[in-house]
């Protein structure tokens, strides 16, 4: 029992807590020595320690149990969602569904234009946001001198992260679609999604840069490398796995957003695949929204709605998976 407890604690990375539960802990041998020396007070102390010990053990078990439940809830939620989607949507998934355009007021046919639209638009968004986001993070973390200016910029980025996505949609409409005259288009949607994911990318890139040990920077500078060479050749490669994680998070966020694209890129229906960056597109999340709220026969398209959701989820999970594999490859290369 005790040993089991101990192992669990160390496994969880709290080796310091060992003394709280371990009777064999060297720290507590002092009490045993006292036993032989003063027999009266010893019982009191031992009693107290015992009581405390069992309470500690209980508290610890209880709390760690709670934490484990909290962690499990996450996995469970994902499982339930996936199961639900599979159960309701799997019947809709056919080869035709994945490769055909929507037909008969979107009650038949497939969702190819939505898949293509979503993939292109979120990739486009990330391609725009990554360089800007990484560059910003490099500036903030490597170049900027701490001070008022830096705090203001940070505040701005944090607030950007909190802006509701529908506001990004309106911004995209006003700026990209109208002011820059891009029209409702793939480009306008990608740029809007890029703006939306920027704070995510900046945040995770900064974290990644912070986790690169300063000793790497010092070693590089000590060899006569310039600051930029140090960043480019040592810091960025070492931070790459973390930066990628940010990119992935941004990408899956972008792929799933509805509000920012409904004014800027996605249309109700277009049978054509996008021919240029200025084409209107269909997109998975917006398609789900349309089918579920504005279709001619909402009930009849339920399986299509779930099917489309299933495709969207698979797409996002698939992207994540690819990136996770890529990241662990990079990590291994860095070892």
């Amino acid at each position: 029992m005790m040993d089991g407890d101990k192992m669990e604690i160390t496994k969880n990375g709290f080796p310091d807590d060992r003394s709280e539960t371990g009777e064999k802990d060297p720290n507590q041998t002092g009490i045993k020595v006292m036993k032989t020396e003063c027999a009266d007070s010893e019982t009191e102390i031992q009693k107290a320690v015992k009581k405390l010990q069992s309470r500690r053990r209980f508290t610890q078990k209880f709390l760690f149990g709670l934490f484990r439940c909290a962690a499990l809830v996450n996995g469970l939620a994902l499982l339930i969602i996936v199961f639900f989607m599979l159960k309701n949507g799997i019947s809709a998934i056919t080869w035709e569904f994945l490769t055909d355009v929507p037909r008969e007021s979107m009650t038949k046919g497939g969702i190819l234009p939505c898949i293509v639209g979503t993939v292109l638009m979120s990739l486009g968004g990330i391609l725009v946001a990554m360089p800007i986001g990484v560059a910003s993070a490099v500036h903030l973390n490597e170049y900027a001198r701490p001070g008022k200016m830096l705090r203001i910029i940070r505040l701005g980025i944090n607030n950007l992260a909190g802006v509701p996505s529908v506001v990004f949609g309106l911004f995209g409409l006003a700026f990209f679609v109208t002011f820059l005259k891009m029209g409702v288009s793939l480009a306008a949607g990608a740029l809007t999604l890029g703006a939306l994911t920027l704070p995510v990318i900046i945040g995770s890139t900064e974290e990644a840069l912070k986790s690169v040990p300063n000793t790497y920077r010092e070693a590089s500078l000590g060899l006569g490398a310039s600051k930029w060479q140090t960043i480019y050749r040592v810091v960025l490669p070492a931070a790459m796995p973390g930066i990628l994680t940010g990119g992935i998070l941004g990408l899956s966020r972008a792929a799933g957003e509805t509000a920012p694209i409904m004014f800027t890129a996605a249309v109700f229906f277009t049978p054509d695949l996008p021919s240029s960056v200025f084409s209107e597109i269909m997109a998975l999340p917006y398609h789900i929204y349309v089918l579920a709220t504005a279709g001619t026969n909402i009930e009849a398209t339920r399986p299509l709605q779930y099917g489309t959701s299933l495709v969207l989820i698979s797409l996002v999970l698939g992207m994540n998976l690819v990136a996770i594999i890529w990241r662990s490859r990079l990590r291994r290369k860095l070892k």
Partner: protein
Amino acid sequence: MNEKVKDKSKKNGFKMKSENLDFFYGDFQALHDISLNFESRQVTALIGPSGCGKSTYLRCLNRMNDLIPISRVKGKVLLDGENIYDPSLDVVMLRRRVGMVFQKPNPFPKSVSENVAYGLRVNGIKNKSFIRERVEESLEKAALWEEVKDRLDDSALGLSGGQQQRLCIARALAVEPDVLLMDEPASALDPIATQKIEELIHRLKKNYTIIIVTHSMQQAARVSDRTAFFYMGKLIEEGETDTIFTRPKLRQTEDYITGRFG
């Protein structure tokens, strides 16, 4: 050979010296008025209790402290007679000439040969065969070649701690510095690896000016020609290592060296 060396150091005075150097971390003055000379092709050991400013002083010599935003320097550090804190001086060039080895081995997460080649590449050398030759030469100088010649393309992080530290020395040697700064280079290593590093320092001093921080009195006695004793940010006493260890002038130095330090 020996005469040549003497000639050079006579002509240029000392290889490196600091004059009335003060150093501040914000309001805290970590170094007080340090004037110290380093002769060409000699090993100087900096000793003193922890927190007395040895690392800070060492990092002033290649301006590594520039990285700390709140830091401030007063006074001069001369390298071949030229003040390294002169605003017109290119700090990147300075650091190529004054190499540094850190307390904890810090190889890059790259292959063994890429670690050594790094300094060459950032200094603009592209010739592959030259780089390959220089990598081998530097690893040989650092007494590591025999151990790693079959694993040049393996990750440097797979080497043992002692090997990693010698790799860091090889990496520093590859760019042909004049001066080598070492901050407790053996403190994270086992006795055998430590001995290898010390032997290496002995051999390197034929060609380099070496300044080494150490907390081990025995190490200072074994490897250095001159010793400087720091205490509370001040230089207390400096001289021939033999003299410092056998007949120190000041009571404070004697107390520290004999371990009677309060």
